[in-house]
């Protein structure tokens, strides 16, 4: 069985619903969504206008679900959607869209454009028009368990390293723990300090937690490619792991899209509400801070600013926690223009950074983030998403800006006193 236009069209017929119909009938071509999309503002190319990225789906909706539309198609006034057209639209729907949702919040008639892009990707992926990069990631996630091919032994090696350095035990498959901690491959490979930070935080907060051997990967390439069937397979592992270990809360790591996939799409993919809660690590740190469980020492004095990952802040509703945490450890924290809810995307989310052919466009789009940094001129940038960190570091390197990017969880952990613990005899 292989992808085909016919399968893609059928999936689109399945996912087009009343909101999408209402949105397509409300669009008045005012062009404001373009002004909110960094792929347009930084390139000036009108083809990157968000609503234009949905043109094939709009025509399909009109031809399939409106009486006049069917008539127009019958008499040849409205040309059918072709595979060639979908192939041409791949660049618009994937390379130039990180599902950041800025277009949806500015649309004057209230069209949730990112909601529609996510549904359009269902048709694009089913018709075989998804980028190689994300297809590879999806393949590896399903076959091996991680989009970057990370296997359990690698995770165990990192656990041993943290146990030696911090002297803190890293529980694995500990049934009945309160928290199940998920990791993302980007963290395991590029920022292993995250696991140590978690261990320190949980230790000081006095909370029980565990990793899960059958489900350590939080990211969901199935959702990024926009295919619910694949996304369901990936997310079901986490759900089974969490339910097997009877945990109360699953912590989504410093990654934007993993949080969206697990917290907002997870239950809908599984078709049933979860028995456990899902919280982003920043949400959990926020709760610990409110409960007075995070006693930090000392302050960062250099000029820091915070980059809000789109899926966490605008799309996920977590905004004030990161500010409270920053103020707990930083003396000189300054906000960028448009920070928080209206923040500009790093340009690499939603699987975009896995698309090699989208590299050049991403560097163009990064100029927006660069302009935010230029305005504030920070010494360092703090964020809460491993992928944002790497995308921004690559962008800063491209523009020869020497600006380190650090993770908030890591920074909080650095300010926790080193754990005083007797060396456990054999774990």
């Amino acid at each position, binding site marked *: 069985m292989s992808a085909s236009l016919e399968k893609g069209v059928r999936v689109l017929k399945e996912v*087009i*619903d*009343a*909101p*999408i*119909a*209402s*949105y397509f*009938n*409300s*669009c*008045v*071509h*005012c*062009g*404001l969504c*373009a*002004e*909110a999309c960094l792929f*347009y503002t930084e390139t*000036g190319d*009108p*083809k990157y*206008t968000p*609503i*234009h990225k949905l043109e094939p789906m709009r025509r399909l909706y009109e031809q399939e*679900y*409106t*009486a*006049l539309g069917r008539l127009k198609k019958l008499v040849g006034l409205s040309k059918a959607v072709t595979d060639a057209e979908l192939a041409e639209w791949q660049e618009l729907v994937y390379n130039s869209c990180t599902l950041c949702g800025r277009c*949806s*919040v*500015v*649309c*004057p*008639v*209230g*069209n*949730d454009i990112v*909601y529609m892009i996510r549904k359009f990707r269902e048709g694009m992926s089913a018709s075989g028009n998804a980028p190689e990069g994300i297809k590879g990631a999806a393949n590896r996630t399903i076959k091996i368990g991680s989009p970057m091919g990370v296997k359990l032994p690698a995770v165990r090696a990192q656990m041993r390293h943290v146990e030696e350095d911090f002297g803190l035990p890293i529980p694995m498959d500990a049934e009945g723990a309160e928290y199940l901690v998920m990791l993302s491959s980007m963290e395991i490979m590029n920022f292993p300090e995250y696991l140590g930070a978690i261990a320190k935080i949980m230790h000081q907060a006095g909370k029980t937690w565990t990793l899960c051997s059958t489900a350590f990967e939080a990211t969901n390439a199935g959702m990024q490619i926009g295919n619910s069937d694949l996304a369901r397979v990936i997310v079901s592992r986490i759900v089974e792991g969490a339910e097997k270990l009877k945990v109360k809360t699953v912590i989504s790591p410093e990654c934007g899209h993993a949080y969206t996939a697990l*917290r*907002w*799409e*997870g*239950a*809908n993919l*599984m*078709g*049933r*509400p979860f028995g456990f*809660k*899902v919280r982003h690590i920043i949400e959990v740190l926020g709760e610990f801070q409110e409960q007075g469980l995070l006693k930090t020492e000392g302050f960062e004095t250099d000029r820091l600013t915070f980059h809000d990952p789109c899926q966490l802040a*605008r*799309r*996920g*509703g977590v905004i004030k926690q990161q500010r409270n945490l920053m103020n707990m450890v930083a003396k000189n924290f300054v906000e960028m*223009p*448009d920070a928080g*809810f*209206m923040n500009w995307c790093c340009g690499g989310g939603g699987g975009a950074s896995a698309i090699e052919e989208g590299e050049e466009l991403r560097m163009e789009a990064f100029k927006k983030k660069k302009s935010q940094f230029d305005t504030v001129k920070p010494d360092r940038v703090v964020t809460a998403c491993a992928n944002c960190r790497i995308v921004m570091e690559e962008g800063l390197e491209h523009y020869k800006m020497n600006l380190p990017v650090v993770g908030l969880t890591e920074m909080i952990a650095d300010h926790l006193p080193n754990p005083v613990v007797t060396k456990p005899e054999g774990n």
Partner: protein
Amino acid sequence: MSELQFLTWVRGPGLDLAIGIFLMGVLWRLFEIYSLGRKKDLAEPRSVAGASGMSTVFRRSIPPAGMLKNSPVTYVAGYVFHVGLAIIVFFFAPHIKFFQSLLGVSWPGFPSQLIDFVAVLTIIAMLVLLFDRITKPVKRYLSTFQDWFTWALTFLPVLTGWMAVQHLLLPYTTMLALHILTVELLLIFLPFTKLFHAFTVFGSRWYSGAVNGHKGVAV
């Protein structure tokens, strides 16, 4: 056919036809659009004050941070046009008479000099918006025949209405008849073009607000 016969026709059968098609079109399209339904969101909700469908219906009328500075023409001319049109249609004495005869409801109107001034502002705003659609690359790129057609459909009633009141160009009888005729064309095409956003905008904003409100995000 004399002017009065023309006026009599547009006021009589013409209006019946137009209002008929308008109501028919509105109901037909509303059913057609909103019957597609929406799946229930099973994710654990997060309730945040102000994050709901209904609040977005109103809040989305306010330009989001930074957007007014970014596109002042679209917002300012857009508001002057929409507010101006609303004032003219709902607060000009003859219009109120018209609604009263239709619905039996009446309300106080504004003095005709104010309406006349607002009409001039509305006409100017629409011309500005037309110029913007012609010159701005994104708007030009997005525009199809329907965008230009609906602009004319909306502009002519305001222009002819204002000229009728001012007794300009044509005898009052003819201009009034033209005004009513252009309104009828507007009514007939409204449900089948992007002008239907006048109805679906509330549904769209509500959905957008509800979907994000479930996540505790006030859009």
